[in-house]
């Protein structure tokens, strides 16, 4: 492994003159008073990029902002709380979930603290000293779909609404909607000193710039891994005519001029599990302190915030010889579905879906992969929900960003000897749910549909619409004939049928699963309140036992057919019981349950009694589970 210079991760460090032996002695003798002038010879510390410290053990940090005094507010989404840290990273205050919000997602500090509360489609203005009560409730001119990132400056407040595909700017009595029809999924937003708004658009891999009147005046970025390109840009910050972008899927922070030229990058992709100290893993939000001396980066999967300070030396330029971010093994998830011996998995980084065969007792064999990034038939911006039917040799895939549902024919003989089948997928049709003009099953909805998890039964397709928080029922003519759960669900994630025909839906913000009669739409009870923190994937076995992955608690819970929790599988880690942010679940032909261990780049297979069977995926992450005598719980060799 190449040595990596400490303190200048992702930047080009200016060579420092070697101190003479005499000066070394002097430094030793006289200490700091002489050492500081020696460092000063390197020039002024002008650019952000030297790792300073890490704030660890956070519960899903998804947003942050600096106060004028240099303290840092962090939103811990999985803990339903806001935490305040001093300039040294020392915790100083926590606003717990008993506050006025249900699930905080974004934060901005101005004269008051603004917190986005997507569960109630609103933003709250809170005086910190009386935080238990919001003094301001902000909603968009035509309603916010799911407010996320925020920024506030000099009386202006800007709100990113990723599921609504727009940004809302509040300026005095003015309320403007920015980027309608332009933005795909605005995940980050910030204000500059001149009244402009900057928006990072994860779906389009772009940064867009709007003037104070809300007019689009330009932007930069395109999709890719090379420096200067972006992959799912998430957080964004502006300081001193520099635009800082959390380039999430490239695992780095890109620093650009306002014209879009790349100046330098901060951070390298963490390749080994839990690597830090300047190595990044899905940086999702960033903030720059008011004086420009601190850059804070939130990494929800690793539960940490890394803080960078100014590095010594002149502002670096891009080193053309430096290797591009190494491509580590991709993650799996969120979805997994099994049918007979086949198993389907989403691979988010490659924007594709993988078909496996589980005929062998060992790890499954990948038969084919299909789809790539794009908007034409055969491509997706981000595939998310999947369904598999071995008998029909058909797969269904949803893309919430594009609002579509694809049906794909898998031209593979299930009985044929195991082999790779490149190009075996043939697209049958694409259902564009946005073209339904918001008329879904006779129910008029307010937001463009965002289809996610899919389940099929008796010729009907049940698909979760995240934007409208319901389940769409689509018949064989591809017409939406019914809407289930509207007004009841808050954040539906996954769905499955039990043997009695009840449709079960996991709801992350309600912390439980809810049952519905698929015909009448009536409630059939709920499970898991108090036991589940952030329910995600869900599946049911033939005995009617329901398995639910709890993403925030790093475990899978089993509910008996009577509704009681009777088994917990997994704990945080990499060993045979280890999980990190588990997502989709599926029960295969052998009766074992496969868990998408999303944060650990692997899939874990357990018996329905919770015994570890095998792991497959990234070798680095599979080894600690498969060879626990050689590797410890954190992947280090014993």
């Amino acid at each position, binding site marked *: 492994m190449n040595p990596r210079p400490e303190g200048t991760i992702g930047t080009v460090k200016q060579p420092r003159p070697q101190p003479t032996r005499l000066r070394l002695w002097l430094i030793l003798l006289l200490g700091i008073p002489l050492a500081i002038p020696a460092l000063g010879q390197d020039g002024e510390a002008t650019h952000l990029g030297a790792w300073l410290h890490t704030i660890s053990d956070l519960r899903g940090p998804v947003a942050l902002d600096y106060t004028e005094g240099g303290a840092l507010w962090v939103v811990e989404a999985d803990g339903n709380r806001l935490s305040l840290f001093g300039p040294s990273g020392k915790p100083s205050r926590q606003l717990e979930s008993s506050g006025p919000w249900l699930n905080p997602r974004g934060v901005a500090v101005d004269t008051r603290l603004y917190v986005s509360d997507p569960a109630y489609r609103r933003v709250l203005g809170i005086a910190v000293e009386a935080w238990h009560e919001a003094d301001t409730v902000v909603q968009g001119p035509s309603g916010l779909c799911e407010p996320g990132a925020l920024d506030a400056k000099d009386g202006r407040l800007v709100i990113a609404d990723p599921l609504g595909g727009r940004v809302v700017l509040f300026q005095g009595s003015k309320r403007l909607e920015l980027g309608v029809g332009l933005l795909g999924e605005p995940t980050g937003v910030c204000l500059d000193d001149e009244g402009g708004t900057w928006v990072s658009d994860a779906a389009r891999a772009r940064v867009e710039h709007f003037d104070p009147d809300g007019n689009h005046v330009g932007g930069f970025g395109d999709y890719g891994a090379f420096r200067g390109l972006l992959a799912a840009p998430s957080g964004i910050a502006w300081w001193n005519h520099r635009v800082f972008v959390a380039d999430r899927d490239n695992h780095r922070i890109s620093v650009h001029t306002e014209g879009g030229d790349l100046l330098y990058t901060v951070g390298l992709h963490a390749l080994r599990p839990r690597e830090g100290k300047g190595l990044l893993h899905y940086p999702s939000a960033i903030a720059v302190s008011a004086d420009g001396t601190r850059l804070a980066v939130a990494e929800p999967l690793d539960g940490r915030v890394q803080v960078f300070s100014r590095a010594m030396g002149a502002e670096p330029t891009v080193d053309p010889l430096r290797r591009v971010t190494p491509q580590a093994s991709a993650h799996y998830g969120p979805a997994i579905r099994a049918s007979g011996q086949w198993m389907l998995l989403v691979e988010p980084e490659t924007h594709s879906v993988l078909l496996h065969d589980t005929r062998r007792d060992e790890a499954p064999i990948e038969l084919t992969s299909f789809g790539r990034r794009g908007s034409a*038939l055969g491509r997706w911006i981000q595939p998310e929900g999947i369904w598999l039917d071995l008998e029909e040799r058909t797969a269904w895939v949803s893309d919430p960003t594009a609002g579509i549902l694809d049906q794909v024919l898998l031209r593979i003989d299930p009985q044929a000897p195991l082999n790779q089948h490149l190009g075996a997928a043939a697209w049958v049709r694409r259902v564009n749910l946005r073209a339904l003009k918001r008329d879904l099953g006779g129910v008029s909805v307010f937001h463009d549909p965002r289809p996610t998890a899919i389940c099929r039964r008796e010729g009907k397709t049940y698909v979760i619409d995240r934007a409208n928080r319901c389940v769409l029922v689509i018949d064989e003519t591809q017409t939406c004939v019914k809407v289930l759960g509207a007004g009841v669900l808050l954040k539906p994630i996954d769905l499955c049928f039990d043997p009695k025909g009840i449709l079960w839906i996991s709801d992350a913000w309600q912390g439980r699963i809810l049952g519905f009669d698929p015909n009448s739409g009536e409630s059939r009870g709920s499970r898991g309140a108090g036991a589940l923190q952030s329910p995600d994937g869900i599946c049911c076995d033939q005995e009617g036992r329901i398995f639910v992955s709890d993403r925030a608690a790093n475990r899978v819970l089993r509910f008996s057919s009577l509704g009681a929790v009777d088994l917990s599988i997994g704990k945080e880690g990499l060993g045979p019981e280890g999980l990190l942010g588990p997502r989709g679940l599926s029960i295969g032909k052998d009766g074992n349950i496969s868990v998408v261990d999303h944060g650990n780049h692997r899939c874990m297979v357990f018996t329905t009694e919770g015994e570890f069977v095998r792991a497959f995926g990234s070798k680095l992450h599979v080894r600690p589970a498969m060879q626990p005598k050689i590797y410890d719980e954190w992947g280090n060799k014993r």
Partner: protein
Amino acid sequence: MKASTWTWILCLALGACGGEETQPVAADPPTAESTDPKPADEPLPLKADANGGGFRLELIPSPHPIPLNRDFSLRFRLLDNEGKPLAEPLKHMALDADMPEHGHGMKIAPVLEEKDGWIHASPLLFHMPGLWEIYVDRTQGHVTERAQLSFKVY
């Protein structure tokens, strides 16, 4: 070097040059009923049902066989399941081609024009040897359906 050796080299060279021409269509299920090559003035269309069975596709490439790394054009029309031509607006149709085993498509985008009951697409370019698929997508309301034909190009 012996004369026989030179003959072999000449034969191999000629064989390699001959490989620049494409092979006739080879279709993978569920795509085409490929037809035998006919004289250029009476080309028989290649036929395929849509993958979902909603319509039929007739397609005639020109030249046929499709050349490797040289521009070509094609014309196609859509038929209902009884074989009657569909009067489909051009804006509801799209044509593209891909190398499914390589995960990429063409480097150019063809222009579609309607003429004499057929839709003419030009230019197309299969710049690599191997398996290519031509896709014709038809959009009706909120649903897009696809028909496709496979070609092996050498």
